[in-house]
């Protein structure tokens, strides 16, 4: 039994937006794998629900003529994982979503919800940051494009405002082509867990040297982050043990891990440095390079 105060099943996108605008307490429920857990815990912020499960247009996964890939926010993790477009072009999205919960959770949880939830540990956040996804957001006045960079504003907080409905991810071809990518979720068990640290990397190389690195972490700062200092440190260098050590050193400028009962700061820092080296190496290998 859940303490639900108000429940509205939206018939159209416009209908959903109107309902979200009408009540400042209104919250979207998609897969429900976060919302229902909070309701079970008695969280009063989730008592008024706008259910968007009737909005089939938000489930679509497609590619347009220019190579932009769109993933609707209502597509479940399992649908995304199994989709040929995603498998072919966005392997790190598949890799990340496969680490969420267990099969039952992935069958109902959505990637849109995983990002909107604002969790510092969101498994899809590293993929969103490495592929520099654009988020399509609608409200009653307009549709806007919001970069994933800057979308998360703090633990559990995003730029979404009253009446905003996040409808789709857009991934541009220049963000996913010719890039080797990899993700590693470091957690205390092999499934049904939140990341202690998550690390994703995208690498582009020319003539044996790194031309671009995108390095992202979850649970390494108050929001999912990119690592500009570390990314800078590898440019023009080959991916070898020495370079990876330089990345690990430069990372300290980028991350701010917490000290908590779940894991100590020193431990998290050690894992962050270890993962950066492992994941960048793997991303380079996926590109066809060698260590």
């Amino acid at each position, binding site marked *: 039994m859940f303490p639900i105060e108000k429940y509205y099943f939206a018939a159209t996108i416009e209908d959903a937006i109107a309902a979200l605008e009408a009540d400042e307490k209104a919250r979207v429920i998609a897969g429900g794998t976060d919302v229902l857990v909070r309701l079970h815990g*008695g969280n009063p912020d989730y008592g008024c629900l706008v259910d968007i499960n009737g909005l089939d247009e938000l489930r679509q996964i497609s590619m347009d003529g220019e190579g932009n890939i769109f993933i609707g926010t209502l597509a479940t993790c399992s649908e995304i994982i199994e989709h040929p477009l995603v498998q072919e072009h966005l392997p790190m999205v598949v890799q990340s979503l496969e680490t969420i919960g267990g099969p039952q959770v992935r069958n109902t949880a959505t990637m849109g919800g995983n990002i909107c939830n604002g969790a510092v540990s969101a498994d899809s956040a590293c993929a969103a940051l490495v592929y520099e996804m654009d988020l399509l957001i609608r409200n009653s006045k307009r549709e806007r494009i919001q970069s994933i960079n800057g979308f998360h504003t703090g633990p559990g907080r995003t730029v979404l405002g009253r009446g905003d409905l996040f409808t789709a991810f857009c991934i541009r071809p220049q963000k996913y082509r010719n890039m080797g990518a990899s993700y590693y979720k470091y957690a205390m068990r*092999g499934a049904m867990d*939140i990341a202690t640290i998550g690390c994703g990397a995208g690498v582009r190389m020319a003539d044996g040297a790194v031309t671009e690195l995108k390095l992202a972490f979850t649970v390494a700062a108050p929001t999912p982050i990119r690592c500009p200092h570390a990314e800078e440190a590898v440019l023009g260098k080959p991916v070898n043990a020495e370079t990876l050590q330089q990345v690990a050193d430069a990372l300290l400028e980028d991350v701010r891990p917490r000290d908590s009962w779940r894991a100590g700061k020193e431990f998290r820092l050690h894992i962050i440095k270890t993962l950066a080296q492992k994941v960048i190496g793997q991303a380079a290998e996926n590109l066809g390079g060698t260590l």
Partner: protein
Amino acid sequence: MTVGKSPIRKDVRAKVTGKTRYTDDFTMPGMLEAKYVRSSIAHGRVTSIDTSAALAIPGVEAVFTFADVPKTLFPTAGHPYSLDPDHQDVADRLLLTDHVRYHGDEVAIVVARDQLTAHKAAELVLVEYDELPVCVTSAAAMADEAPPIHPGGNTIKSTSFAVGGDPKEAEQAADVVCEGVFTTPVILHCHLENHTAYAYMDDQNHLVIVSSTQIPHICRRIVGQALDMNWSTIRVIKPYIGGGFGNKQDVVLEPMVAFLTRKLGGVPVKLELEREECLVSTRTRHAQTITARAGAQNDGLLTLLDVNVLSNTGAYASHGHSIPMAAGSKFCHLYPRAVTQFSATSHYANIPAAGAMRAYGSPQLFFAVEGVVEEAARKIGMDSVEFRLKNSARPGDITSKTGEMLHSVGMIECLEKGRDAIEWQKKKKRYADQEGTILRGLGVASFSYGSGTYPACVEIAGCRLVLNQDGTVHMQVGATEIGQGSDTVLAQMAAETLGIDYDAVHVVSEQDTDVTPFDTGAYASRQTYVAAPAVHDAAEQLKGKILDHASLMTGVDRQQLDLSAGRVVRGDQPDQVVLPLEELALDSYYHKDRGGQLTAEVSVKTRTNAPSYGCTFVEVEVDIALCQVKIIEIINLHDAGTIIHPLSAEGQVHGGMAMGIGMALFEELLIDDETGWIYNGNLLDYKIPTCMDIPELDCAFIQTHDPTSPYGNKSLGEPPIISQGPAIRNAIWDATGVKIQTMPMTPKVLFSHFREAGLI
């Protein structure tokens, strides 16, 4: 012959098709739901409590507080009643309390028309406290200045014993003496079905309780004690149950639902704990600090084991001091030629109450014992398996504190078989000179256990058999089926002794204390061992009555008749059917001049306790940089006597191994040392391993025949969980050179150890 085969479990078709009914599947018209109001602090006195807002909610029937409950302290441990006042369980509970002793203690209870209303109302009960200092750890609780958690102080009991000789002499005889301090965490049972119970008054003025319990007959007695009622006026019914692991070998909800229905005029009242409540507000496994010493001679002879256990039993005694003492008496069976000294202290603290949990203190104890035994072997430069082979129990050893020598002992064969199965020598050589940061290692650890509680407690079991009109047999036992498969193996035994098909035996699975024969329940891995003689004797009796009636019907001399595959045959010509059992049954019921309903009923007290044995062999791979342990191979070897149902036995071992791995590498309830606040009382943050974390599990049985059981069987319920922790610990040591003395060996623990060792 059905014993030793694996017929389809009695309950399995119903279970996999969702037809079995559990406590929560039953409902009654007008049933009310109750919800506890729990303390938000770990230690303090309630100074005021305001229930008016809760009572104002529509649908709330009543709110009771600590002021409304009987002032009778009662014990909760699921032990048989003891005639010896000094051996009775500690009576330290009230139904509700104004002296809260852990974060989540019960100060009031709301009764409402549905769960959600009860939940909402419970949140509106306003409680104010006068906070008291909090003791979480053993050190804090045992400190001189520690506040008394119960009126008698924080120490519950201290005891000690020595067997096999003089410990001082044994120490002097040793060339090396190793010592280690080992710590183990608070562990949660995490059974699938949360605690749930309901009660109502029937029209006979009897109180009826339906509960998910391992101990219906004990529950009846404790509710009687708590509410000061005649025990016979309480009727406890146990339907199918979704696991307990010892957490339902305690009386948790039953006295409260009984109290509530009496207060509310006999209407049915139900209490169903939520998962989070069930995790921290039922019982836990004791956290222990164990100082262990082992003395050995250079030739490999173990001369001394000296173990001291400090056992943190939390806010209430529950099973209390029985936990370290039971483990202490069972571990003496393993190395019986060494002198053993054992001492233990149990104490209160401001953490959830610890009670019975699968293997009852032995996993903690053997973590220390097999850790320090490993150290002794390494110190004298002897192979870990060789050292254990030299010192382990063999047939003819005195393997118990009571001096018995008659039992079967298959420990040596377990070690030998495990050593071969994991290719110990070959891998030892291969891993001797490893380099890099990903390292492999091998570990072994042994255990010994008992097959019941005798002579500490009475062991009583009952069986009733009835020949039905159609020639099948109904069996009622006091043995409590809790998913472990007791109905199945007891039916196999009955079929075997009667000489009828397994399928012709129907077990009445539901326990009902008004109807079923007396048995104290499912715990201590006793059920198969202590029920076997009752089943055997009842089957012999019924068989005798059947053959007597066959003789009456046929005129053939009784001595020439036998029962085989459900037919009366001539003993010397088993293929020649004298009489089908169906025909005999109809005759016994309906012949106007002879026969009657053929039944047998037996109650037996078992006055032996067969030791069971086994060990775990494990190969691990340790990733130093990632601070992770991966189990490459793990094998459990068991001497559980004769295996009655091999497939169920294997399942029992697999489940135990998975729980043992959980304790070794994943699980711990985290409690703030200062405030007693529980951090991870939910299944996301309390990390039981998932199927992704459990490797392929191997097991094998060394079949012995224990002469004290009519079917040769010994315990197997709890033993499979005991030896994974020390085996994995020893394997990590083997791989990395780093010795860990604490469970669970999580990445965080490995990180600090590896850093200290300069590995990272």
